[in-house]
């Protein structure tokens, strides 16, 4: 069977073969399968050594000290640990948290849980291009604000927030700053030795490492303390108990080391592919890029083909694996909350497709995708009563629709 071309790298990435080969050495009897917490024998020491190397590899990519890296099961857990950990530890100082409406559900739902526990959360509207309104943020900070959580790069629209400026505001106001960097680590420069960031979440599988593996950066200077969410053997300096998954950790370390070595070239190459894809659509009628096109990660193109419903387009271009902000792709039947928060109309949100290209995407993949998408958009517009109305000059907003 011919498999579809993968253009959904923001969703997950394949494990790099170099990473997989290395991981395989930490599983079997012949390999270093030991428990890093076994301090009394060779097997434990070998595992501990491998974990230390990986911790340095992750720290190196982001300009952190290895002692500032806490292993977790992924960015979702890192976000939970950071936000709940700060809230629980510092609640005597205040119970107010600020975040953005376009954050990942792992942040939003964690905040919702804290609201149920008596915290107050402000969910800010982003600007129309997806970026945080710094003045609005400043005005929202109160005496009792303890934490601000903003993602570095948005998973749907790929826009990059200005961490330096946000962090400066946080420091001035003595507010802890947590950043979800699942989509940015290894793709754009991050230097935590300079950035005013207190906590940062990482994921391995977004950057050619294994799924089920992540890390949380917890700053030592200034010192940040957390209340553990997972209790047990006191691993990870008490912040996250549980036997370390050596092979997963080694995989994340290797993936981050490769990213550090190849980031510059890879980013240039990916940007060219994204640009090529965009150029292939830019002369079409009624095509809108969602989110800022300049302040955007190289691999992401979130684009709406107006008057064509996203899910039916995905079905038509099933030779290319992409994702859509259309309601029909979710079980809730609501269109993407991220696109809605940008102020997009429901119909544009329903019509959106997210292409994300990466390490194994070729120019031919992009060219084939362009041909396919153009053909199918045309076909679906021929099928679309809304396209007819647009062509007849009817303003869709003037029509009284029977919402259902």
């Amino acid at each position, binding site marked *: 069977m011919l498999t579809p071309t993968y253009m959904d790298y923001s969703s997950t990435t394949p494990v790099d073969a170099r990473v997989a080969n290395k991981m395989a050495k930490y599983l079997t009897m012949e390999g270093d399968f030991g428990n890093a917490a076994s301090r009394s024998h060779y097997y434990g020491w070998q595992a501990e050594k491998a974990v230390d190397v990986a911790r340095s590899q992750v720290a190196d990519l982001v300009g952190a000290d290895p002692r500032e890296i806490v292993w977790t099961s992924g960015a979702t857990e890192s976000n939970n640990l950071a936000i709940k950990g700060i809230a629980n530890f510092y609640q005597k100082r205040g119970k107010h948290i600020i975040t953005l409406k376009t954050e990942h559900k792992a942040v939003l739902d964690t905040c919702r849980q804290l609201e149920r526990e008596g915290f107050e959360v402000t969910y800010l509207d982003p600007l129309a291009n997806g970026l945080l309104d710094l003045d609005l943020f400043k005005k929202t900070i109160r005496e009792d604000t303890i934490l601000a959580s903003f993602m570095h790069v948005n998973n749907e629209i790929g826009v990059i927030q200005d961490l330096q400026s946000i962090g400066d505001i946080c420091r001035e106001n003595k507010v802890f700053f947590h950043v979800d960097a699942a989509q940015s680590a290894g793709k754009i420069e991050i230097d935590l030795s300079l950035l005013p960031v207190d906590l940062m979440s990482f994921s391995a599988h977004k950057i050619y490492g294994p799924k089920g593996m992540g890390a949380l950066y917890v700053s030592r200077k200034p010192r940040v303390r957390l209340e553990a969410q997972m209790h047990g053997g006191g691993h990870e300096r008490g912040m996250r108990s549980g036997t370390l998954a050596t092979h997963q950790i080694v995989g994340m370390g290797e993936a981050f080391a490769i990213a550090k070595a190849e980031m510059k070239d890879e980013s240039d190459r990916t940007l060219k592919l994204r640009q090529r894809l965009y150029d292939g659509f830019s002369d079409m009628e009624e095509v809108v890029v969602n989110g800022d096109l300049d302040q955007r990660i190289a691999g992401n193109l979130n684009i709406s083909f107006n008057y064509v*419903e996203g899910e039916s387009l995905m079905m038509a271009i099933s030779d290319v694996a992409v994702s859509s902000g259309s309601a029909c792709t979710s079980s809730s039947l609501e269109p993407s909350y991220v696109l809605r928060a940008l102020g997009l109309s429901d119909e544009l949100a329903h019509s959106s497709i997210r292409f994300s290209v990466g390490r194994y995407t070729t120019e031919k993949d992009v060219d084939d995708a362009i041909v396919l998408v153009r053909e199918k958009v045309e076909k679906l517009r021929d099928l679309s009563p809304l396209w*007819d109305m647009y062509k007849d000059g009817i303003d869709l907003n003037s029509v009284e629709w*029977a919402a259902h």
Partner: protein
Amino acid sequence: MAYGKKVLDHYENPRNVGVLDKEANNVGTGMVGAPACGDVMRLQIKVNGEGIIEDAKFKTYGCGSAIASSSLLTEWVKGRTLDDAAQIKNTEIAEELALPPVKIHCSVLAEDAIKAAVEDYRKKLAAQV
């Protein structure tokens, strides 16, 4: 989501796509749904002197199931009387296409569309008398 064979067939080869003259006295038009909800169906029927639907056309903005539901509907209504057509139930469409629960609303929309088209035609007829 994986689609059934019949949905894919109607989606890839939609039957009776097109437009009838909505001003014509023998044409009834039903437009249902809303862009904000992600689906809009326009179903048109052409009715002969005996009250039988002799032609049907559709255009649909929506997911694959919505397109398939309307395509199937145009096949079903042709040759039926108005009363007969207005009695098509969404459950029959959902069953024929094996729609999953989350897509049942697409078949509901199709049922609404044929009811609206029949009503539109009957209004025109009444106005002529």
